[in-house]
């Protein structure tokens, strides 16, 4: 059971409990603010006062990041003898049409994330732009999936609902309109 993929009704409630634990420790569940802390550590305060923050006050969240790296290692190397993600057959067909032959056979698409695929400059550009949009978008919106979709909506915040609607507008545009242009032949 532990070694099988965990069902949604196990994962969801566990995420809520972790969020509540952080609140009970006097903190907030939010992963994207760490991106700004990395900027501050890297000396971004020289460019704008926005990054002049007391890094010590952000340390707790960096420890959560450190933990999630450890968790990713344990999940992948100790708890997952079979890393295949059993996605819906409909999804597999759609992805194969876009050239993703690894659909249904891997955890991440090898076409984008295998080391061999890095010989294609297009893959570098895609990964960099994707990351840039994640970093810029979350900070502009003031939160990501953890800060808005989980924490904000749990606290019934209308701004978080607007942000989550935005997440879906962007995601749907990307997958339905842009994927055929980016990956289709």
């Amino acid at each position, binding site marked *: 059971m532990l070694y099988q*993929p*965990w069902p*949604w009704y196990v*994962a*969801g*409630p*566990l995420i809520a409990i*972790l969020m509540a634990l952080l609140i*009970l*420790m*006097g903190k907030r569940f939010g*992963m*994207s603010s760490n*991106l700004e802390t990395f900027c501050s550590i*890297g000396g971004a305060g020289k460019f*704008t006062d926005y*990054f002049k923050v007391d890094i010590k006050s952000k340390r*707790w969240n960096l*420890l*959560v*990041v450190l*933990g999630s*790296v*450890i*968790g*990713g290692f*344990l999940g*992948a190397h100790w708890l997952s003898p079979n890393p295949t*993600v059993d996605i819906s057959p409909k999804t597999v067909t759609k992805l194969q049409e876009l050239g993703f032959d690894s659909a249904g056979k891997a*955890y*991440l*698409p090898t076409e984008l*994330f295998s080391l061999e695929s*890095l010989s294609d400059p297009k893959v570098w550009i895609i990964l960099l*732009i994707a*990351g*840039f*949009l*994640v*970093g*810029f*978008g*979350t900070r502009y*919106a*003031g939160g*990501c*999936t*953890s800060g808005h979709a*989980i924490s904000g*909506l749990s*606290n019934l915040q209308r*701004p*978080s609902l607007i*942000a989550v609607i*935005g997440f879906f*507008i*962007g*995601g*749907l*545009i990307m997958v339905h309109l842009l994927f055929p242009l980016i990956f289709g032949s």
Partner: protein
Amino acid sequence: MKNLAYIFIGTFLGIVLYKSEAASWFRIYEMFQFDSFHMYGIIGSALALGVVLVLWIKKSKVKSFSGEPISIPDKEKSFARYIVGGTLFGLGWALAGACPGPIYILVGAGYWSIIIVLIGAILGAFTYGVLRNKLPH
């Protein structure tokens, strides 16, 4: 001791998101295709319990573990930043197949290419910090 607790919470989160495949690019694509209930089940059940827990914390006026009162500030009121920022994030989320939490988790899982996504994300956060006074909020 507290430091260990933060590391432990992160580790548990990493295992949960990896094992539930919320950190898989394929699951994110599948979600935006509406081909499976899986991701909606994760977010939905997290919210169902999350709403109850947050309500309990607020109503019971329970103190934090270190004995301080807990206040959960409301999010700043605005429309532009949430819809525009949210949409930009959504574009990146679908393309990278990972939001910030899973990016760190996938580094630990040994998918080294995700470091390029992480560098892009830090550059994006930096660019926001530089431009923020010029952006509508």
